[in-house]
């Protein structure tokens, strides 16, 4: 899926056959192989308990893999203590040292490296300028707002020019507007400084906004690693399709497979043509995935024949400001969402019978959920 891209940069971090268990029974991370390229912004995305934070903590050195090896710049680091890994980290609750001023917090990684005074001052000043907080240098963390604390945590993790920066849900405690603003700021920092960032989040929109690549975690396994648009357009399985963006699911059985496409008989009645992405063969059950914005609602009476026309009943419509959603009952799925064009909402009445239609290439046949 990366065809046409320039030759990938060499891997800075390589997870090789990593397994991790806390209790000796349940594997939190099952057999992880993952390459992180120099200079990229990679996001580990997944629901809580999917193993993404554990993966990050193993990379930082706070957890030891039960099996496998992690390489940082081709050097095995499984037995290297965290303070010798030269990895900057931004924590969920910032973890700014409450007894030190902002300037002292930012100077901390330099002073433990015995950087001389003049250079330390210079770099702290530059870091403060970078986060536009020169005037707050002598404040304590407790006197700052959440967003300001987050900026300081960033500056502190970057000031010693680490080869890798880890971020563990750093924006989780901020409100929506601030979070979106910080996403852009972090992204900008990444681009101007050319650092490698490993970012952990459970917020898919955050991952889509910021990342060069996203690794989708579930049940301790990386489901898919790809560019954000590729993940959205070409999910390899139902979990990814469902986790990234809005998604309608229709259960059915594969009737025939023909090259890239297959015909699927829906459990709720009707037959559609879909792209065969993750189906084992004819007769296998499957889950169809269709994005809400790829579906059109046409009038019941228009009888132009075409593939993938399904009768639907309007449940209600939801107004969301910039667009509206129609909730329909389609082939047994009573929460079938269709994104509406502005103004289209007025024509739909609850209980009305309509027909939905979508192109075969927008309908993906995936593993059954």
């Amino acid at each position: 899926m990366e065809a046409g891209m320039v030759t990938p940069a060499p891997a800075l971090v390589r997870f090789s056959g990593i397994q991790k268990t806390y209790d000796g029974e349940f594997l939190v991370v099952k057999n992880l192989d993952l390459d992180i390229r120099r200079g990229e912004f990679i996001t580990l995305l997944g629901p809580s308990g999917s193993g993404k934070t554990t993966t990050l903590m193993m990379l930082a050195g706070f957890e030891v893999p039960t099996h496998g090896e992690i390489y940082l710049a081709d050097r095995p680091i499984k037995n290297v203590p965290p303070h010798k890994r030269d990895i900057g980290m931004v924590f969920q609750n910032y973890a700014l040292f409450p007894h030190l001023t902002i300037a002292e917090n930012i100077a901390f990684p330099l002073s433990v490296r015995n950087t001389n005074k003049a250079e330390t001052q210079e770099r702290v000043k530059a870091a403060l300028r970078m986060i536009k907080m020169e005037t707050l240098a002598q404040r304590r963390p407790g006197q700052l707002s959440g967003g300001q604390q987050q900026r300081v945590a960033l500056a502190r993790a970057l000031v010693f020019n680490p080869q890798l920066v880890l971020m563990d849900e750093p924006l989780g405690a901020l409100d929506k507007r601030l979070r979106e603003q910080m996403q852009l700021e972090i992204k900008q920092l990444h681009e101007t400084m050319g650092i490698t960032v490993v970012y952990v989040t459970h917020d898919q929109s955050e991952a889509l906004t910021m990342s060069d690549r996203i690794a989708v975690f579930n049940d301790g396994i990386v489901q898919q690693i790809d560019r954000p648009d590729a993940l959205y357009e070409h999910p390899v399985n139902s979990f990814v399709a469902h986790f990234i963006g809005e998604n309608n699911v229709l259960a059915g059985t594969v009737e025939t497979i023909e090259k890239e496409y297959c015909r699927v008989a829906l459990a709720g009645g009707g037959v559609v043509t879909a792209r065969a992405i993750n189906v084992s063969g004819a007769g296998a059950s499957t889950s169809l995935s269709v994005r809400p914005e790829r579906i059109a609602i046409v009038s019941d009476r228009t009888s132009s024949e075409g593939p993938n026309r399904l009768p639907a009943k309007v449940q209600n419509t939801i107004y969301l400001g910039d667009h509206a959603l129609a909730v329909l009952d389609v082939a047994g799925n009573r929460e079938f969402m269709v994104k509406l064009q502005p103004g289209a909402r007025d024509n739909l009445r609850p209980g009305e019978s309509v027909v939905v239609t979508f192109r075969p290439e927008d309908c993906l046949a995936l593993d059954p959920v």
Partner: protein
Amino acid sequence: MTAASSTGADARTEVPLKRRLKRAERARQIRALALILPLLLFLLFTFAGPIAGMLWRSVDDREVRRVLPQTVAALANWDGKDLPDEKAYAALASDILAARASGTIAIAAKRLNYALNGFRTILTSTARNLKAEPEPGTAREALGKINPAWRERITWTTIKDASGPMTGFYLLSALDLTRNVDGAIVAAPPDQAIYRNVFARTFIISLSVTALCLILGFPVAYLLATLPAGRSNLLMIFVLLPFWTSLLVRTCAWIVLLQSKGVVNDSLLWLGIIDEPLRLIYNRFGVCVAMTHVLLPFMILPLYSSMKAISPAYMRAAASLGAPPATAFLRIYLPQTLPGIGAGSLLVFILALGYYITPALVGGAADQMISYFIALYTTETANWGLASASGAVLLLATVLLALVYGKLVQGQQVTGGMKN
């Protein structure tokens, strides 16, 4: 429209609103006061009252005034430069006769004897030998004949000093100071100067015990704060276990353990590590060991609560920023436990300052702390003035310490910031 009318209402009701607020608050304040009233009264009667009484006793000096009223009156205008005039002698003779009749001479004798050793003899011998009131004009001669001390200036300055109603005598004594015959404050004679030594000893023992408690308690508190809940609770029970046993029992247990035929010595002898029993008790060592054991929980608990508030993320952050464990501990963890260290140390130190039973049971003569002497003066020699004065000095030292600590903690809070 609505906004305009509401601001208008605000302007009109601004003063009544404040009053209404006050009224609403008052009900809550009265309720709060009612809740603490029983404790307040209890403390007033059992704590504030006795302390005020004690402080008063340390300066109260009316015994001589009561027993020798005419003498005190006659000496009121005496400048103390020379022997007093005949009138004072006559007044004294008359006072002594009256006191002998009422049997109160011993009260004045005891008080005057504190200030001048031997005064008891002077007064009682005079009382015994003074048959009748001397002829007018011969009192000085008559008294001087009975006891030549009456010809000494110091005898009279002592009476004048003790004539009350308030005195600095006890407080000065508690600091090894006294007034000489000219009324100047000078160091007490060496045979009476024991209190500075006792105070110094009290502070040294308390400091040693505080340091020991800190050294022993810090790792335990750290474990308590970092272990998983189950094991941490178990450990906490062990920490609190001493509170379930009486202080006396715990102290006596140390006697059993540490005495020359005790468990520790017997074990060491049996193991062949020592040839003869070590002296582990009735000395400073025993006092420090027993007091540390008793006071350890008072150090661990404040330390624990301050450590519990430190998020493990701080140490992780420090490590990720490149700090080796020791550096992270010294620069990140330790500074954040300072309030706990301060609170625990102050608590242990102040408790240790007033310790009585433990040093009395396991200490030697040279290990008795100020509370021992306070108890001695209160119960044995009934020198309540000196007991109160010692208590007042101890109280003053403690209050000063608490104030210093308060200032330090306040500084910490201003500079220490808040939790995220």
